[in-house]
């Protein structure tokens, strides 16, 4: 994995932007964004944006968080304004689903302040409030993480799958056979994936790929063999592949052991966000960050404790993205 210089970043970003704009102007589906990046530039970009001063007096500073989000998106798309970045992800008139991760309650879930910042930027990009849906597996998960359930059609909606429902027909790919959440299939035109950077006691880590377990009715069936190939196979279900356009990983507080539940004793303030279109590249990068922290704390690598996330390599073989460090352009801003 390499760190690109500012010059290369701007050059690659400009090429990417021009090509992506050309593709969009020809009416092509933006859901192909990740694979276009791989094809056209030969690399998958992962931005790691950090702000050591993100916490003021123990709580997250909302203004600094918005600035951090802007910095991350602008670096990812190599543009000068946040609105330019968001217009490359969504179009006015689309319904945008924000798939958060709230299983662990307040400690290790997607921060509501981050989601609020995303909603603000989406609206500035022309998305109406009523066309934004914040969703997760269960409404009580959302509430535990600090969200307030909202079902009115005239505002930003916040709902769990149990309120919206699942499809009646089974969707299947490889080892995966599930009923998909209607939040994904019926309501959202585009999905922004908002996972959390954390350890998982069975499948090793849970980041962008595994966060879509929240879009199926039976995630508990997919944990054998440390999640391989299930995590990759679930992500292959067509509506997931077609609709997820970007991952913004909440790494404000990260966890290197004891997940997915919140364990403050095994968490650390990373004070950052990871942004990528390629979920495999993002998960590979996040995995390395967690391994580095485990090593720093004297813990064994995940492989040595039987939790190596082999499903990342499986996802790469499926063509979802790349786990080859030589093809991951890691930008730290």
């Amino acid at each position, binding site marked *: 994995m390499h760190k690109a210089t500012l010059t290369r970043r701007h050059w690659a970003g400009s090429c990417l932007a021009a090509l992506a704009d050309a593709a969009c102007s020809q009416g092509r589906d933006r859901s192909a964004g990740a694979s276009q990046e791989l094809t056209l530039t030969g690399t998958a970009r992962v931005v790691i944006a950090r702000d050591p001063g993100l916490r003021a007096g123990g709580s997250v500073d909302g203004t600094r968080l918005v600035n951090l989000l802007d910095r991350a998106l602008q670096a990812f798309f190599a543009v000068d304004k946040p609105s330019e970045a968001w217009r490359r992800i969504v179009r006015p008139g689309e319904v945008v689903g924000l798939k958060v991760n709230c299983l662990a309650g307040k*400690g290790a879930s997607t921060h509501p302040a981050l989601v609020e910042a995303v909603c603000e930027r989406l609206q500035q990009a022309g998305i109406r409030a009523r066309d934004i849906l914040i969703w997760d597996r269960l409404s009580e998960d959302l509430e535990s993480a600090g969200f307030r359930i909202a079902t009115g059609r005239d505002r930003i909606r916040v709902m769990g799958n149990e309120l919206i429902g699942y499809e009646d027909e089974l969707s299947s790919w490889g080892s995966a056979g599930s009923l998909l959440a209607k939040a994904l299939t019926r309501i959202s035109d585009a999905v922004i994936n908002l996972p959390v950077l954390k350890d*998982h006691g069975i499948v090793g880590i849970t980041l962008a790929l595994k966060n879509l377990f929240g879009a199926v009715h039976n*995630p*508990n069936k997919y944990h054998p063999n440390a999640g391989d190939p299930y995590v990759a196979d679930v992500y292959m279900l067509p509506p997931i592949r077609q609709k997820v356009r970007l991952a913004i990983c909440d790494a404000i507080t990260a966890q290197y052991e004891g997940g997915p*539940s*919140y364990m403050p*004793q*095994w968490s650390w303030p990373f004070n950052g966000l990871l942004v990528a279109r390629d979920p495999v590249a993002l998960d590979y990068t996040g995995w390395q960050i967690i391994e580095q922290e485990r090593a720093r704390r004297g813990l064994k690598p995940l492989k040595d404790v039987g939790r190596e996330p082999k499903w990342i390599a499986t996802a790469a073989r499926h063509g979802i993205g790349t786990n080859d460090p030589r093809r991951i352009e890691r930008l730290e801003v």
Partner: protein
Amino acid sequence: MRLRLRLAWLLVALLPGCSRPRLDPFPSAQESGGWIKGRVRTFEAAELWRYIDGDAERYLQAGIERTFSAEYRYQERLEAVADVHCMRTAAAARRIFEWEPSTGSRPAPVGEAARSYGTSLTFRRGRYFVRLVAYADSPEAGPALLELAKGIDARLARARP
């Protein structure tokens, strides 16, 4: 025959422990140094994944009956969650307790064995494994969690075995 059935039913009904739905392990503010109890939930073993996802597997493997969970607030400054995992045996509770790394912890005076990690605390008593987690990195979290733990422990001691 009917009398035997009735007697057997009565014996089952009188069996102590967490199989009885009326077990309430969560203390009031008076019993816990001022912690105010909020939402309380119960998860049967088969539904535990809805609460802690993949983390449920190791509890299932160790042998769990159900989990009680309560949210607490302390003087409008601290929020915490208390999980009481009711295992089938004391050995199962010990196994879960020992499974967790003790690095960074110190013993705490509650239950039959306890570890304080500052903003979290775990202890076991009989077949109960208890975890308390505070959602603020504050110096008062440790002492306050210990008071809550003692309140829960007192209730569990009365509910044993």
